[in-house]
């Protein structure tokens, strides 16, 4: 039996409002979940019956702080302060988008940003929380041209 592929995340690509956060991040989670509604009726065979409700898209990124021009703080602080919607694109590998390297894209808003965060002597880091901020929700793209068309549309 051939060995099963178990994809470690080594060269993830994390782009937030056009800025490449890949080398400034060490953890990323893209989560798409749906509310559960119990729709169990009588004579249901003894099991509860669930159905999905509204979906929630949420991306968290653990980022090392950097105050230099055009980098982490200069990017995140105004996005958080002004509640600006922006595009975030995550790929498992820093290669072309494809069926084996799909891009997850979302127009989101920043709900959590720590401008200063560390224990004494430790490198500053924080977890950014980006939540869906448009009707598009979380989209998956397997072709570069489709992602570019989405970028032009938003």
């Amino acid at each position: 039996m051939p060995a099963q592929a178990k994809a470690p995340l080594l060269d993830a690509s994390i782009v937030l409002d056009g800025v490449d956060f890949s080398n400034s991040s060490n953890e990323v989670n893209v989560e798409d979940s749906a509310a559960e509604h119990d729709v169990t009726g009588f004579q249901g065979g003894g099991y509860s019956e669930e159905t999905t409700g509204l979906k929630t898209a949420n991306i968290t990124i653990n980022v090392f702080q950097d105050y230099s021009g055009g980098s982490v703080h200069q990017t995140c602080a105004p996005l958080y302060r002004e509640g600006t919607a922006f595009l975030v694109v995550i790929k498992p590998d820093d290669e072309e988008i494809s069926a084996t390297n799909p891009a997850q894209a979302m127009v989101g808003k920043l709900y959590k940003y720590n401008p200063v965060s560390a224990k004494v002597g430790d490198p500053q880091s924080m977890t950014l929380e980006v939540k869906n901020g448009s009707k598009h929700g979380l989209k998956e793209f397997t072709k570069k041209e489709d992602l570019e068309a989405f970028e032009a549309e938003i």
Partner: protein
Amino acid sequence: MAKRYIVTGTMAQFGHQPGEEFEADLNEAAAQRAIARGGIAIAQDGDGLADKTRDELDELASIAGVSNPEKLANKGEVIEAIRAAANEPGQSGSNDQ
């Protein structure tokens, strides 16, 4: 409409590395935010600065009156400093070479 930009920050922007010039039709709001945070600047065609080496840029920056250009993080920042110095009152503003 596509415009020419240069990456002035220390992190890659819109798929381009610090110091790199590129032409792109960026979303106007996203481009304005990137300019405001110092990540990119609109490139001034024709001054040839982007083609110069870091050493050449440091030398030009010193001539232009930029103090300690060697301490700037990357080519993009040196180019911005040279352009800013050229546009200061009392300077000719010319990039003729």
